[in-house]
């Protein structure tokens, strides 16, 4: 096995005082020049496992056992001096958020030179200077003095991440660990960063471990993919084998939950949540959420097995799972009906809206309609004005608005407070992050009581009934009423936020990136729920998102926004299959797809 750059055997990371396992039995290997994608949902322990490869222990965690062999040396038994030499030299790390990982007080040059000097790269200052320029060229950044004199805040997010990549590749490492390096970047920037990673790894034969929650990102980058669930690797295999014949039920469900640009199938979420350390069952951790679970699954966690030396699976029933075709029992997506015919049908009409922040015009004359039982998606990158438009309609935009925003033909006041009770009730806004939109000091019952108190004159028992009704609409039960938001999972919190909006009995729901802070499996359940609400409750919906593939799963119409303008508008299938605007074409091309 000498051609492996990295081998990991039975790595275990546990919580410090309690000894509960975060990760256990992690076994994998990476060849020279190979990119291994490590995929998992939040709290699956993927970042913890990845940083353990550098013998790093997060506060509150410790490495409990196993072997990490890089270049024939066991990393976990190195002395501090040797470890320091190894880190950044032989194995390097690219963290998630470059705006946090670059020192804001040091110029780019200083930070890059620091790496080279610390590892004694080259024999003279001159040689290091040359290497510095070479590095900058490798990551497609200008290497001139003016650029190198800049501070991190003077660079864009994508440039910052490329500086971080340059730092990681500086000493020509054997292995590089990339921890979600494109999360938080726009798709266009993400595409550039991914391209840089791809060319660097293939040109220099560097092995890479790419940690991500997004299967679509690694689909085009990784040679092999490892899927992590609740701290265990459940499936490791070549990319194509995994996408075409996934053998673990979790991998299959994950694939079913991912919105794809082509989007022929409806999304299906994974109900339930992953067991947390200390409360993991004896048998297979996924058994509780698995359709294939048998009594035997509850007794023992399955060993590594699988169709080939290269494709390992930890499932007792992988043969049966493998034999089934992928996406077989998934219903096809409901294709969009006719367009929202006349403006007369529209509940909300926006005409030539110009929206300002202070004196700066950020939306330059936008027109759009929202119809009952229809969903219009506002899509665009950050700064495109999509959230501003949604907030302006909802009456929570703080600046000046020109043009018309009409509700059933009547103009809406700029500020929600100045609107009539009926208008406030009919338009409900759902926020991006359920971690911020629910008051942490109020119980779910108190939170749901706010719209009921404001809009309806109800007795106590009527109020309780309405709350339970609202919770049932979002597939939660009434026992939650006495709980506080921090006792719920992210998905449950977002459902509560939706229930709060529904309690007002609105005719229009404005959803602002409501799934972007959630895992894909949870995102799919929320999308299912919203689609059902459009159908059953008959609300009109504005769905704001930066994630183009989601659009097909929820909306009938789409408006693509860029720099404060709607650049293209139309039925979803028409726009996505045959985009007219250059911007839409570029956006589609940059969006990773499976």
């Amino acid at each position: 096995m000498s051609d492996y750059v990295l081998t990991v055997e039975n790595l275990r990371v546990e919580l410090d005082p309690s000894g509960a396992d975060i990760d256990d039995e992690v076994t994998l290997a990476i060849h020279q020049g190979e990119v291994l994608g490590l995929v998992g949902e939040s709290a699956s322990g993927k970042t913890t496992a990845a940083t353990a490869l550098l013998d790093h222990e997060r506060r509150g965690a410790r490495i409990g056992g196993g072997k990490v062999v890089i270049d024939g040396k066991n990393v976990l038994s190195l002395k501090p001096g040797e470890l320091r030499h190894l880190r950044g030299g032989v194995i390097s790390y690219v963290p998630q958020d470059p705006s946090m990982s670059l020192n804001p007080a040091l110029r780019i040059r200083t930070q890059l030179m620091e790496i080279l000097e610390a590892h004694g790269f080259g024999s003279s200052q001159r040689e290091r200077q040359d290497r510095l320029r070479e590095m900058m060229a490798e990551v497609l950044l200008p290497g001139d003095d003016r650029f190198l004199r800049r501070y991190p805040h003077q660079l864009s997010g994508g440039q910052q991440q490329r500086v971080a990549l340059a730092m990681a590749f500086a000493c020509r490492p054997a292995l590089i660990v990339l921890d979600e390096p494109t999360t938080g970047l726009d798709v266009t920037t993400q595409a550039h960063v991914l391209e840089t990673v791809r060319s660097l790894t293939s040109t220099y034969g560097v092995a890479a471990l790419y940690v991500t929650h997004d299967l679509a990102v690694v689909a085009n980058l990784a040679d092999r993919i490892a899927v992590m669930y609740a701290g265990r690797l459940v499936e490791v295999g070549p990319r194509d084998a995994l996408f075409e014949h996934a053998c673990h039920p979790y991998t299959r469900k994950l694939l079913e939950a991912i919105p794809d640009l082509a989007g022929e199938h409806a999304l299906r979420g994974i109900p339930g949540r992953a067991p947390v350390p200390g409360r993991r069952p004896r048998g297979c951790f996924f058994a509780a959420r698995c359709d294939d679970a048998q009594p035997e699954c509850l007794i023992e966690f399955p060993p590594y097995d699988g169709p080939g030396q290269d494709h390992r699976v930890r499932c007792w029933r992988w043969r049966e799972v493998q034999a089934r075709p992928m996406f077989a029992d998934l219903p096809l997506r409901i294709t969009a009906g006719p367009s929202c015919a006349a403006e007369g049908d529209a509940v909300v009409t926006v005409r030539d809206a110009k929206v300002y922040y202070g004196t700066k015009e950020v939306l330059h004359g936008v027109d759009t309609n929202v119809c009952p039982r229809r969903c219009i998606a506002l899509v665009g990158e950050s700064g495109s004005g999509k959230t501003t438009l949604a907030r302006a309609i909802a009456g929570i935009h703080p600046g000046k608005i020109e043009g018309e925003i009409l509700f059933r033909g009547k103009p809406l006041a700029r500020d929600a407070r100045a609107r009539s009770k009926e208008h406030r009730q009919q338009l409900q806004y759902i926020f991006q992050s359920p971690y911020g939109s629910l008051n942490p000091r109020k119980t779910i019952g108190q939170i749901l009581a706010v719209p009921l108190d404001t809009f309806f004159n109800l007795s106590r028992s009527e109020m309780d009934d309405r709350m339970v009704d609202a919770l049932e609409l979002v597939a939660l039960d009434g026992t939650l009423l006495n709980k506080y938001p921090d006792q719920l999972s992210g998905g449950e919190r977002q459902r509560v936020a939706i229930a709060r909006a529904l309690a007002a009995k609105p005719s229009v729901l404005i959803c602002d990136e409501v799934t972007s802070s959630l895992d894909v499996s949870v995102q799919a359940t929320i999308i299912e729920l919203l689609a059902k609400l459009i159908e059953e409750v008959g609300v009109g919906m504005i769905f704001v998102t930066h994630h183009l593939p989601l659009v097909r799963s929820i909306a009938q119409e789409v408006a693509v926004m860029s720099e404060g303008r709607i650049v293209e508008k139309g039925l979803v299938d028409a726009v996505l299959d045959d985009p007219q605007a250059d911007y839409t074409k570029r956006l589609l091309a940059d969006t990773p797809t499976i």
Partner: protein
Amino acid sequence: MSATPQITQELIPSADELLPEPQAGGGRRRREWTDLLLGSWRFGRTKVGVIIVAAIVVLAIIGPWIAPHSPYVFVGPPYSAPSAHALLGTDYIGHDVLSRVLCGGRTVIGLSVVATALAMVLGVALGLIAGYSRPAVDDVIMRLLDVLLAFPSIVFVLLLVALLGHSLVLIVVAVAVTHAPRIARVARGATLEIVGRDFVHASEALGVPRRKILLGEILPNITSPLLVEFGLRLTYSIGLIAALSFLGFGLQPPSADWGLMIQENRVAIVVQPWAVAVPVILIALLTIGTNLATDGVSRALIGIDRDTGAK
């Protein structure tokens, strides 16, 4: 604006996220500030502080009942040394010092607590309103408070008392007014951090009245820093009110009061030190005690912030 996915925090499980979460179905849980108090109890300084304060408060409350003499009767010649009859000796006109100490704490403690509570109500109300108003209103309120801040507390109180004649009510109000701007600053700072949160916007979009948003959404989220502020202001109030008594603007002779006792007996401190030393020590201990306890609470608060910093 907020188009970049904010999954960042979500993806790195923090240690507490990985810890077993509180058992579901447990009904109402403890509020966060109760956790804060319990958390602060871990620190030795909190325990010491609370024990000192509790001991002095208990002494002041039950003092009049256990005092061996009435504080107003003459038990011996002025400035006599401690004896079996008067354990701490007598004061400048022959009252029993021990009895006067036991009876003299209620005023300073009572006035301080009332003044601080009043200051909190005033300051928090102003801070909340300033933090949740248009910039113009915010500016007017805060600049007016800055004017008040420009007066040293003691000078301001003396000014008021000199102008309006002295009464205990006036002292309470005056002390409260000197503290209010400082509390308002803290409350406003905490409010500003909360008003930008989405749950406040959510209530605004529903058209919830401002008053309800202030009291229902914002106030419960700023209780922790206010708790620390209360302790700190209480410490200052004790010092300030004791000082006013000493200067003769508090209770009038022959009332028993620690601050007044220091003033009455200071000339003979060499002859009969107890009549001055005991009230001084008690006031000092009370101040140190509240300060230690507050310090513990604020340490716990910073600690809590660090643990959940990501959220």
